[in-house]
């Protein structure tokens, strides 16, 4: 039997479709409404509320916590100020990504981390190996629920409940009090829109949920499921483990593994020469940068509408577009004399209702990654493989100004 999150008593009656799926052993709604696209637009046009409680959550504290995180994290933890959050990854010795996650620095020696897969024992093992005495790694997964409040009216909603979120800069966080409940609010999200993520002690989860829903009523707040979230994150160019890449931890061969640089996160290593952190995978990552040995680069693909429409019309059918999101791997070919000249692959594919075209996240060899490069993407048309023209683009596809805005003013 899957478990339920602390918000389930409220979510259950709101789920019009009554369909649930299993996310890390918890019941979670893929969608609440029949119209997925309508649900998605809560993120872009009004405001949405999403339960992300099934994420694994860890509290890392103690005076040695920095040393531990310096060792584990590929991105420099020292660049994460107290009162801010950081998107980070951890890699293995060969530089392959184990996981990605968001870490919150709530105090000088206190961190909260979210992760898609368990990592308690691994972190503890590293601490032990380093002989660190003053560090505690605790699994607090079942002590907190997390809600993501995302959309143009996210601030209109949260500001009715607390003033503490108003001055948060992008990726800042604060402790706050909502309905006499101590919560942590970070100015973060997985949608590429204006938003907050709120850590709430499980025992008060429903009180905070009710307060947010009531404050959001005038702004058409809507609970959203994981599919609408995933549609938004494709536009935002945010990768998803298990879809766009796999953890190195359980891979059999390196062909299944990817480095942070291959995944488009080379910006995390911009100041690498200026720090002397001895983090796991450093040598491999330095060698990859120096020798330019990346096998792929992660890019955006914009599928040409005229081409997409034409291959369907030629077959006598309309191009599918409504509620179209999938995670199956699609092959990409060079546009050359050689037919079906394999080049790379696309993972997340979306007909973006907002951008009015199909888009995808793709891995391509370095010579094909300049924006505007033309490639062929293989799609099925009446069960047959057909190539459509696609243009390489940079990620993200969609960046509204409000995504990084400070609502209290200032940038």
């Amino acid at each position, binding site marked *: 039997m899957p478990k339920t999150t602390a918000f389930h008593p409220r979510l259950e009656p709101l789920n019009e479709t009554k369909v649930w799926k299993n996310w890390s052993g918890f019941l979670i709604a893929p969608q609440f*409404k029949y*119209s997925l696209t*309508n649900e998605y637009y809560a993120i872009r*046009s009004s405001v949405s509320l999403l339960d992300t409680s099934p994420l694994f959550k860890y509290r890392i504290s103690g005076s040695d916590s920095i040393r531990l995180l310096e060792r584990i994290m590929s991105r420099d933890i020292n660049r994460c100020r107290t009162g801010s959050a950081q998107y980070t990854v951890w890699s293995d010795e060969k530089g392959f990504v184990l996981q990605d996650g968001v870490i919150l620095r709530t105090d000088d020696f206190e961190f909260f981390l979210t992760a898609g897969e368990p990592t308690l024992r691994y972190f503890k093992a590293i601490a032990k190996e380093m002989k660190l005495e003053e560090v505690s790694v605790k699994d607090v997964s079942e002590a907190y629920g997390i809600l993501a409040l995302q959309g143009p009216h996210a601030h209109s909603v949260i500001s009715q409940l607390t003033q503490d979120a108003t001055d948060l800069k992008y990726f800042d966080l604060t402790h706050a009090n909502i309905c006499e409940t101590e919560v942590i609010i970070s100015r973060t999200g997985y949608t590429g829109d204006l938003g907050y993520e709120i850590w709430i002690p499980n025992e008060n989860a429903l009180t905070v949920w009710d307060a947010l829903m009531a404050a959001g009523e005038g*702004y058409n707040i809507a609970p959203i499921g994981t599919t609408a979230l995933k549609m938004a994150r494709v536009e935002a160019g945010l990768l998803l483990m298990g879809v766009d890449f796999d953890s190195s931890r359980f891979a059999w061969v390196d062909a299944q593994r990817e480095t942070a640089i291959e995944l488009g996160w080379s910006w995390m290593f911009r100041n690498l020469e200026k720090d002397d952190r001895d983090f796991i995978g450093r040598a491999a990552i330095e060698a990859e940068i120096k020798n330019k040995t990346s096998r792929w680069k992660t890019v955006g693909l914009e599928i040409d509408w005229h081409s997409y429409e034409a291959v369907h*019309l030629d077959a*006598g059918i309309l191009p599918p577009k409504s509620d179209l999101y999938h995670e199956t791997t699609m092959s990409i070919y060079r546009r050359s004399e050689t037919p079906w000249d394999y080049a790379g692959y696309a993972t997340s594919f979306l007909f973006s209702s*907002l951008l*009015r*075209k199909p888009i995808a996240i793709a891995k391509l060899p370095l010579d094909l990654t300049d924006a505007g490069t033309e490639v062929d993407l293989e799609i099925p048309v009446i069960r047959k493989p057909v190539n459509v023209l696609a243009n390489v683009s940079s990620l993200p596809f969609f960046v509204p100004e409000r995504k990084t805005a400070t609502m209290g003013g200032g940038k």
Partner: protein
Amino acid sequence: MSNSNNYDAIVIGGGHNGLVNAAYLAKSGLKTLVLERRHLVGGAAITEELIPGFKFTTFSYAISLMRPDIVQDLRLADHGMMVLPLVNTFQPGLNGDYLLLGADADANFHEIARHSREDAESIRDLSHLIDRVCFALKPLMDNIPPNAMSDEPVELAAMAGLKEYMAGLEPDVRTMIDKFVNCSAAEILEEYFESDLVKALIASSGIIGSKVGPRSKGSGLVWLFHKMGEYDGIFGEWGFHKGGNGGFTEVLAKAVMSFGGTILTDADVETVIYKNSVATGVRLASGDEYFAPTVVSALDPRRTFTQLVSSDDLPDSLIEAIGKYKFQGTAAKVNFALSDLPNFPGLENRKDIYMGFTNLGPSIDYLEEAFADCEAGRYSKKPFLDCCVQSTIDPDMTPPGKHIMSCFVMYAPYHLSESDWDTERENLGDVVQATIEEFFPGFGSLILHREIVTPLDIERIVGLTEGNIFAGELFADQMFLNRPAPGWNQYRTPIAGYYQCGSGTHPGGCVIGGPGKLAAQQILGDLKHEEG
């Protein structure tokens, strides 16, 4: 005159087709000027904040998705185009009965099955057939139609090609097209359905904006036309643009400017300047003149052929055709600012029922009675209303918790036999309000503000002759080869360099952008031909 008044192309009228046309021309590198008579662009697609915080879609209120190729060509998504899909269609009856259809085909099956299990199955067959009809007619919608009056080999070949294409369609599709052209909506619906609510819901698409009842010949074609804008399913792709339809025309204006085009408002074009049947520019009512070898009218055919130029300079056959071209607007708008959502007995507190079109016209007989008033030269005592509470989809249309409700009203004939619209304006508002009250008791107590737009107001404010929302009836003899007149259906006019691109040209009305795009294609083709 200074060089600053010289352009490559001038578009008269900043409605959505004028803007689409100008954007294409500007994108191709022409120095393009849009001249709009009013203080704002948008034509009939505008949003106005009549009371603080409440955004009224005074005229046009919903959008059937623009062709994706236009969106991509003009990069409209980059300029903020955002069409919010409608969630539900709500068709209340007067006896507590209702039909509430949404995005899920299986849920819709069971909802229709409450009224008739056979209807629930029929609707699937019919909508698939209509989808195939729309697909078959798509090339006709998306291309410049042939000229049936021309002896040019290329046009003769195009006409022959058209005949061949139509003859090559699958028999059931061809038969259905014939039915749409020759039958009333009611006749077709009787074949498929038994439930009054189901028939009335679909039949209402056959009367929108047109002087036909559901049992009149012509309603079939109007129905088909309203299907052409969508493909995804029966009640498919209609939406509200973020910020109302005015939000959409603002996006178009941004696109025009991003391609280097100029838009001038408060610029009332009095006449096109031409000599020896060659256009050279325009003169405004203010006396200002602007010059360009290409002048495009986005206004309706009557204005294009009888007001902007002198009828005396045009062929008699064209002037005769334009004289016969029917406008006869029959629709009005009544828009409300509301303190709260209306209540439907039995579905109290269901906000979602308003997230789409709310269709007040519960039976074919009801619609037909409303039409009988129109035939007699009166507005309907019990009108058909297509209501949208846009704030349930887009919270930025109103202050939090408040609502805006746009009501499209049929029938309100432009010519009243025993009164005039300045006298009847408030009475029309009262009739609409009383009608809503019958379906939603207590409605009157929610009203914060009421805006009434008669066909005369549409004509006066927007400039659409007789207030016809499509710039001319969508009748078979005014469509395709004949829109707006036989021989003049390819966006050109008898005056060289003078073109037409409004909804009075093929493919016609609604916010679809087709006329503006196809006219630009014709203009750019002609310019290339001249160069070559």
